[in-house]
């Protein structure tokens, strides 16, 4: 492939992006469209626990939750995946066996990414060797800001080469990139380096995912698709805790990338508390009554 000059990526007009988002947030998603959307959201969630305080038990609990979102409604889907640190991958694989729920693992010195490539490779290897289906790596933001786009590109490509069949999600940590132009450029670097997914955030930095950020990433994915014919997935992570906002993400996805992206092969939500809000909305739609958090298990 022709060398891409990442110093010359397409420009983004932030006010124009906001304008477009205001069209999405003004939309009204009601009735059967809402219910269907809510089911899709559940099925797109990477149920996530990434705490220093995580334990085997905690991981087991969220694995159970991923498979049994709300047992009173047996037609509910499972989440798309469970997302944990590499040392919990084995546990998650065991717990989720046969459920179809994927195991995703953050790696590459998550969340800062401040380590040499060899350390990162070791980290990734642990995750994959333990059976992770998906690897969520972070880019080197320091190198990015110093303009060493080749380094960022090569690092992603190296990781991609090391993970075999596992799918690679590349976390841009958009909250550290400074503006939308950088988010566009980082998206391009990640995709051309081989990312299967581009993901906004670690969840450790604010702001995390926002609609404007995701729109910029979707437009990058669309241009990449136009250029190469390869579909890259998108994962907003962090900051999406209510169903209404999640529905707006889906609508933005539908209007930007179309129906082929509307599934968990190409779209994920990285979230820990979104699932319960979505469940409350589903139960509200079915019973007509507004719900209380106390009736939905935390994990």
């Amino acid at each position: 492939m022709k060398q891409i000059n990442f110093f010359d990526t397409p420009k983004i007009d932030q006010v124009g992006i906001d304008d477009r988002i205001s069209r999405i947030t003004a939309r009204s998603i009601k009735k059967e469209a809402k219910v269907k959307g809510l089911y899709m959201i559940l099925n797109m969630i990477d149920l996530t626990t990434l705490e220093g305080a995580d334990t085997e038990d905690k991981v087991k609990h969220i694995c159970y939750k991923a498979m049994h979102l709300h047992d009173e409604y047996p037609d509910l889907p499972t989440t798309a995946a469970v997302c944990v640190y590499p040392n919990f991958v084995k546990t998650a694989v065991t717990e989720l066996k046969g459920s179809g729920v994927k195991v995703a693992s953050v790696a590459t010195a998550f969340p800062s990414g401040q380590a040499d490539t060899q350390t990162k490779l070791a980290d990734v290897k642990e995750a994959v060797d333990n059976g992770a289906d998906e690897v969520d790596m972070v880019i080197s933001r320091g190198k990015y800001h110093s303009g060493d786009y080749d380094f960022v590109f090569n690092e992603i490509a190296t990781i991609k080469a090391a993970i075999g069949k596992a799918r690679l999600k590349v976390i841009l940590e958009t909250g550290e990139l400074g503006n939308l132009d950088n988010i566009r450029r980082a998206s391009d670097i990640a995709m051309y380096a081989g990312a299967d997914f581009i993901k906004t955030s670690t969840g450790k930095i604010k702001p995390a995912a926002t609609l404007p950020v995701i729109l910029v990433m979707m437009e990058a994915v669309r241009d990449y698709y136009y250029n190469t014919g390869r579909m890259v997935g998108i994962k907003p992570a962090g900051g999406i805790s209510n169903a209404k906002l999640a529905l707006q993400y889906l609508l933005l996805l539908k209007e930007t990338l179309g129906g082929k992206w509307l599934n968990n092969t190409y779209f994920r939500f990285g979230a820990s508390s979104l699932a319960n809000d979505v469940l409350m909305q589903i139960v509200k739609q079915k019973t007509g009554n507004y719900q209380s958090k106390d009736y939905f298990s935390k994990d």
Partner: protein
Amino acid sequence: MKTKVDIDYSSDWPLAPAPESMSHINLKEKYDLFINGKFVKPKSGKYFDTFNPANEKLLAKVALGDADDVDIAVKAARKAYTNVWSKLSGKERGKYIFRLARIIQERAREFSVIESLDGGKAIRESRDIDIPLVSAHFFYNAGWADKLDYAFPNRKPKSLGVVGQIIPWNFPLLMASWKIAPALAAGNTVVIKAANTTPLTLYKLAEAVKDAGIPDGVVNVVSGRGSVVGMAIVNHPDVNKIAFTGSTGVGKIIMNAIAGTGKKATMELGGKAANIIFEDAALDQAVEGVINGIFFNQGHVCCAGSRLYVQESVYDVVLRKLKGRMQSLIIGDPLDKNTDIGAINSKDQLNTINEYIKIGLKEGAEIYQPECTLPKKGYWCKPTLFTHVAQSNRIVQEEIFGPVLAIQTFRTIDEVIEKANNTPYGLSAGVWTDKGSKIFNMTSQLRAGVIWANTFNKFDPASPFGGYKESGFGREGGIHGLEPYLKFD
């Protein structure tokens, strides 16, 4: 663009209907003229029908006024001017206008729904753009009423007297606010003619004027045929000023009629705006701007960006994105909150647009319309683009006033400036580039009254609006918009 792949915007996740609630919408069966603070029957005793263009259903009957009614209205306006309005202090005048602004805000939902019912525009636009701007215009101008001396230092501004105003059907209430608000702030009284296909909200505004306690005769609303009621206003000897928004053709008839009479005039006429995309633009936002530029209000917009010029190096990608975005637009019931493009305002206008589409095809242009099903009843037109057009084509030269975009390419700045200015119109223009110095070059070279750089179709009461050349003269909005309603020493 190395591949031929396209995005498929169809999905098995359609949005459910989300109709705006019709509760608390008060529509009478019949609307009488509003003269001297009262709703009065027209002298002729006749009424005309106003329809919902989205389903062709009758909405209400509206008074068919004539010259006699206009005369009564002008007399009422003169009396109100002499006896009441011109004697009020600017401060008190301003308070009345503030009151009106507030009432419009309070009744915004009702006004929005009626605007969409009567005109076919998407509720998203009447709710988020038209009606909020209407009250904003009254708010903005209200504050000027007691500050005119600061607006025109050393000129001793004075009101004109009775002003006659004629508004178009595309933004009925918004255009009424653009006209009534500065006229009242400047101390004039008003006789205003409602648009023929969309008269209802102006009569709703008359109700609000009454509710605001604005003295009788300060605002008078008449409706009827342009050739009768409109011309009666224009020709009335006791009208001091004419403010008109509408086609250049009618504007010329009016200007001819008032030649030599000493009447002041403001003309806000047609347009054929160039929207120019350079290769270094933020292309996705530019495409969104093109969409807003031409499909806003079904293209029934005098400043619509109806001529798109794309730098040749990015033509393919822009076209691909534009077509994709058009596929994702939702066309249908104007009262559905998710509708992007509503109904064409009238059967006549639909015929005009369809005629131009035929002309475009005959001129050899290539047409693109997204796949979508249009409602069976009502007046509808798919968003349309024409490629392979020439500057000399009629669809490039003439104002279509519908959702029809003509696309041409260019290579250099020189070339595109020449093409953009190559029109008798000069209302608005758009430029898309990420380079600052190029923006200022373009915005200073383009001969148009409003230039949108890296945006399009934005409006604000503080922002002067109006054209160069055959797009008219005088400004509406901002400090500049007061001047046409004043005389000076």
